[in-house]
Structure formats: C-alpha cells, structure tokens
C-alpha cells in the first residue's frame, strides 16, 4: 500500500519566491467571507438546580440569555431531565455570532438520579445524527451545524472532591463532547481551600481516565501565547462566580460583582476568580478549536460508529485483494456454526433446569408429607389430652370458679 501511495503523491519541493505574488492576502479573504457568513456556537450547560447556570451564561456573554428564574419555577417538582435551548444573535465589532445555549434543568435534582445523563447523551447524539443526515443529503448546500461544541459542567464548591454523580456523568460524556468542568460560587472557598479542591478534582479526573478539554498549543507559536495557554491550563478547572448586577465600589468604580457585608467580589478581577480566563478560553481564543475538535474528532468517531452499525462496512478494496463472495460465504458459515452451538447450549441448559426443578419439587412434596403427619400427630395428642382433662373435670364434684385460675392484670401483680 505504501508503494502505491508514494507513486501517486506528487514530489513536493520547496521553492523561494522571486517577487511579490499576493497570496499572502488569502487569510483576509477567508476572514471577510466568514464574517459575512457569521459564526455560530452551541454551548450546553449542565448542573444542579441553584448552582448558577443561568447567571454564569448571562455573565459570560454580557446578555440576558436566560430570564430571571425567581418565582415561576420554584415549587415545580420536575421528573427527570429536560432539555431546553435558547438562541441569541449577538454582534461585536461587526462580527455576528449566533449563540445557542442548551440548558438541562432537572439534572441531579431528584432523589433517584440513576441515568439522569441519558436524556443529555441522547440529545448530543441526535444532533450528531441530524448533521450526518444532512451530510448524506443530495443537496448539501445548506448544512446547519447544531452540534454541541462545548459542554460546561458545573461543580458544586464542596471543597472535598468530585461527587459520584459528577464522575459518572463525565465518564459517559467525555467521548462525545468537549467537557469543560467549572466550579461555580467559588466565593465560598478561600484561596487555600480552592487549591486543594482543584488538585483533588484533577486527581479524580485522571484516576477515572476522563478526557476534559485542554487548550493546546504548537511549539512554533508566540511565547506570549504559549505562556497564556500554560497559565490557563494550570487553572483548570476554573473557579468562577457570576453576577448580573453592577455594584459601585467605594472608590467610585462601577464593577460587575457581588456585594457582601464584608467586601465586594468582582467578577472580572483575576485575583478574585477565574472568570476572565474562562471567558477567554471559551470565546476569545479557543472557540474555533472547540468547534474543530467537535467536528474532526468527536463527530468523526460518532460517524464511524454509526455507519458501521448501520451496515456500511469498511471498504477493503482500497487496501488489498478482496473477494467479496468468498468473504460472504465465510461469514455465513461462521454465523451458522455459532447459531447451532448456541442452540445446543440452550437446550442443554433447559434440560438441566427442568431436572433440578423436578428434584426440588419432589423434595418439597416429601417434606410436606412429613410435616402433615407430624402436625396430625400433635393434634391427636392434644385432643387426647383434652379428652382426659374433660373426663377428669367431669368426675370432680366441685365446680370450677374463676378464682382458681391465676390471672395477671397488667404488668404489676397486685394480688
């Protein structure tokens, strides 16, 4: 195969330009084109009720994507997980972004949360399937990309380690979506507690082999960029707070933050929390990488699995001499052999079970007989005893009075 490949690929030689050609302008053309088209980004947020999903999204994109959830949704006992998505088109410096945020209310809120990830997993996979169907259409000019590009998983700031539900969820999702774990309400942890908490979370993630999204960089990039990325990586998982209120500080500045009796925590202060880093990674620097990984790795894996199960087989003619009919016959004979073996096994098992059941029934029957006899004997004895008593009592002259019988009234014997 390698010979054929090298024969087909053209010889690539490096040449030096001797004048100005002008293709250096190509990235700008791409840029203009994409800006005209606009971008889209789909984000899914998963976390318990009250952990700060809506506030975080509103803070991230500086828009009220989610309305205030105060009185209306309280008291609703949800059964299971719902999937609800909101879209917003926002514009910045002429660049249009169609942002879709998928919310998952009800996750982890019930007493029994078995399989609470199932609806979420199904939603992600159905989006992949929808994209696959669009790709396989005859007319592919309009493909809309609704796949989830990133999943933000919100972790409760317990200060200990990941909970069973966190680990379980991430284990099931990390091969289907870019996982970004985020600690919310991080103002409940001091800096020391946070360091310990983050290290335990990373230890848990590594122990269970969970692949979370990590910013990558190439060695040839700017050292500044590399440092930034390294810094970002060191802070994962990000510990953030969200706020939709603007507070006026004592020195006159107006900042987005939370006002406490003991101080003001600022959302955009890197010393207070990692919000800036999260927003940078998610929106400024790595949005394209998230989409790329979704498309090239996650989606491709899903697609290969799906096509194999749908019946498409790996086309082996590309690789070697291949006789389709012989292959089919081989497969059929193997299949038939397997079926007959299974059949014989099953009949053997069935017969064995029937025998066991029969012997058990016989045993219990014998036992019942024995017991019946015993009980009959006891009853006989009792009857005889009673008859004797009756005879004795009949023969006596004095009648029986209640005072003869010893009676106990209550617990205390006040005779």
């Amino acid at each position, binding site marked *: 195969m390698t010979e054929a490949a090298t024969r087909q690929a053209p010889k690539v030689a490096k040449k030096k330009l001797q004048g100005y050609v002008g293709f250096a302008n190509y990235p700008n053309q791409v840029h203009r084109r994409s800006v005209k088209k606009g971008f889209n980004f789909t984000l899914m947020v998963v976390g*318990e009720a*009250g952990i700060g999903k809506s506030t975080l999204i509103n803070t991230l994109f500086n828009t009220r994507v989610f309305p205030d959830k105060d009185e209306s949704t309280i008291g609703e006992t949800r059964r299971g997980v719902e999937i609800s998505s909101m879209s917003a088109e926002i514009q910045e410096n002429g660049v249009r972004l169609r942002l879709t945020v998928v919310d998952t209310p009800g996750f982890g809120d019930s007493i029994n949360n078995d399989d609470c990830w199932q609806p979420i997993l199904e939603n992600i996979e159905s989006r992949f399937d929808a994209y696959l169907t669009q790709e396989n259409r005859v007319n592919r000019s309009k493909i809309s990309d609704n796949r989830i590009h990133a999943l933000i998983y919100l972790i409760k700031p317990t200060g*200990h*380690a990941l909970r069973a539900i966190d680990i379980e969820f991430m284990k099931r999702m990390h091969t289907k979506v870019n996982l970004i774990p985020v600690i919310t309400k991080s*103002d409940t942890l*001091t800096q020391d507690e946070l360091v310990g908490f983050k290290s335990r979370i990373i230890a848990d993630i590594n*122990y269970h082999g969970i692949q979370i999204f990590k910013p990558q960089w190439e060695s040839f990039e700017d050292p500044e960029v590399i440092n930034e990325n390294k810094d970002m990586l060191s802070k994962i998982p990000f510990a953030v707070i969200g706020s939709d209120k603007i507070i006026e500080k004592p020195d006159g500045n107006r900042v987005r933050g939370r006002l406490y009796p003991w101080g003001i925590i600022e959302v955009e202060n890197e010393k207070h929390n990692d919000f800036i880093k999260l927003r940078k990674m998610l929106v400024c620097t790595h949005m394209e990488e998230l989409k790329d990984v979704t498309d090239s790795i996650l989606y491709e894996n899903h697609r290969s699995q799906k096509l194999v199960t749908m019946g498409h087989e790996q086309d082996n003619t590309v690789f070697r001499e291949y006789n389709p009919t012989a292959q089919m016959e081989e497969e059929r004979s193997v299949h038939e052999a397997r079926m007959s073996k299974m059949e014989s096994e099953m009949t053997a098992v069935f017969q064995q079970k029937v025998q066991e059941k029969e012997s058990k029934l016989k045993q219990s029957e014998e036992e019942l007989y024995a017991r019946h006899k015993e009980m009959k004997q006891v009853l006989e004895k009792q009857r005889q005893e009673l008859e004797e008593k009756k005879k004795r009592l009949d023969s006596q002259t004095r009648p029986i009075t209640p005072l003869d019988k010893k009676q106990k009234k209550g*617990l205390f014997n006040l005779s």
Partner: protein
Amino acid sequence: MSKQQSVKLTDYVGFDTIAAQIGKKIFKKGLNFNIMLVGESGSGKTTLVNTIFSKNFLESSGRKQAAEKSRKTTEILITTSVLTESNAKVRLTVIDTPGFGEQINNENCWVPLVKYIKDQHVAYLENEIKPERERVIPDTRVHVCLYFLNSGYRGLRQIDIEVLKRLCEVVNVVPVLSKADTLTVDEKMKVKEKVREAIELHRINIYPQPNPQDDQAEIELNNKVKKVMPFAVVGSNLTYEEDGEIIKGRKNPWGIINIENKDHCDFVLMRDFLLRTHLIDLVEVTSYKYYESFRTEQLQHIRDMRGAQPAQTTQQAQQTQQAQQVQPTQPTQQAQSANPFSIAIPAQQAKSPSFTKPSVQSSRKYISNALSK
C-alpha cells in the same frame, strides 16, 4: 382532702437556692448531650461543630483520595468527648453521617438515620424497665439533629423534604444553612423565606415547637428564633487580625468574614440557641415527647400481646413453643376438636413477625425478652 393555698413569705427562708442545688446534682450525675449531623459531604458539618466548641476535635469524613471509593450507604460515625467549662462537665457525643445523599440513587438514604435514633430509644427503654436498673441510665438518645441545607435558590429540594419529614417524627430537628458566605444579604432573606414556606407547606415540625406550658418569655424567645430560622452560618476555626483585634473568620482577597459578627452570619445566634438557652430544653423535649411516644407505643403493644393470651400456664407455654415451630395453619380442625372450655390454643400468635417492620419487630423482641427475664 388536700387543700392548696399560695402563701407569701415575709422572711427570707432560703429555698431559692434550689436552682444551684439542682445544677450541682445534674453535673454530678453527668449531662449527656448527643448531636446528630445530617447533610451531604462538603456541607460544612465538621467545621461547624469544631467552630461551635472552638476546638478541632472532629475530623472531616469526606473523600480525600481519588482511589477512595465513595460510600455506598449512609454510615454512622460516633465521636464522644467530655467537655469541661468552669465546673460544668458535659459528655458530648457527635453522630456524623458520612455517605448521606452522596450516591446517585439516594432512595432510603434516611433509613440508617431513623434506625439509629430508634435503636437509642430501645436501649434506653430496656434499661428503664429492668427490674433492677441503674441509678443513672446512660442517655444515648439523640437530643438534636442539625440538618444542613444547601444555599441554593430553590428552598428545599425533594430529598430535603423527604428526610426532614421522617426525621421530625423521631427527633428534634434544627435546619442549618451552612456556607452562608456565598449569599448576599438579599439572597439570604429570600432563601430563608423559601425554606420557611416549604417547611410550612409540607407541615414539617421543626424544633422549637410551641408548648402549652411555655410562659410568655419562652414564647417570645421561641418566636424570635423562628424568625431567624434556618440559621445561615459560616464556620471557621482560623483567626485573623483585623484593625488590631483578633477575629475568628475566613479571609478572602475581597474581605474578611467575621463569624461572630451578627451582620455577617447567624453563627452567634445559633450557638447561643443550641448551648446557652435551649440545651436543657432539647434534652427534655427528647425525653417527654419523642421518647415518651415511643415508650407508650412499645408498652401498649406488650399489653396487647399479653391480653391475647389470658391463661398462660407453663404447660401451655410449652405447647405454644411447639405449636409455633410446627406452625399450625388449620383453624377448622381446632374448631372441630374444641372442648367446652375452648382454651385458646395459641395458634394466632400476636407475634406475627412477617407483618411488622424489621426495626419495630426487633425492638418488640427486645422488650418481651427483657420482660420475661
């Protein structure tokens, strides 16, 4: 006929020292105080207890290593310590419940809790009805259960409602909103409001309960406490220096939280409530409300059992043993062989083990065994 009259004394007699005498006697007898902590891992139970008693005598039961597996069920972890202050000695038992609410499926996570509480009642009752019992019965009954809520916006979660309902039937429950440093003043009010609403809606009987014997001062105090409940607390045993004075609190880049500042959190209110004003009340309510109802139920049951077997002679006792083993199930045969005296052959045992719940059945066994000794 005895007549009761109220007499006003003109000279000082001196029996108003009775309070001090009682106090001395109580401490000689030894006061047992048992607190149960119920809440998810990481809700701040251990820190809070250490903060209340100003001593790190409890260790957190959370999962620390990645290789450690999370607990499969609610466990009971008991730590007993003797605390001395001035000349007062208290035997404090803290019952931690690691594993509560930690699994993915938390159905019946409250069963070990209720079982433990009931078992303590059983042990006390056993000791109490012994013909020769000790002068001071060791009191392991749970006097108060601190239930830790998460400071979320939604008030009570489903699991909270279920567990609170069940716990309030057997023990004094005090709900606590821990890690309150994540709530601003407005949010705190809103959350407390929601929790109180939910408690009322589901008719959960949180301590303190109104008592017809309370006097005006007590009623006022209880109302004041109820307005603050659930206590929004922050726990810490670390001290920092601020403006020259040493404060216990938590330090953050944006400020220092002073635990003992009433504007910052309700820690002081809760501590005073638990230890300085309502300690004895908690012990008493456990005794006359929860323990009494348990005791009444048990002894009533024993009386019923005794009532079903009026003429119990030793011979018949032997017969009952035999009959029990063979399990006669033909009442018609007995009716046929009935004699004019119709001595009830005790086939219908009041002890029908298959129909009662396991914990109650075991306690009944305890009681009847104790009685037959």
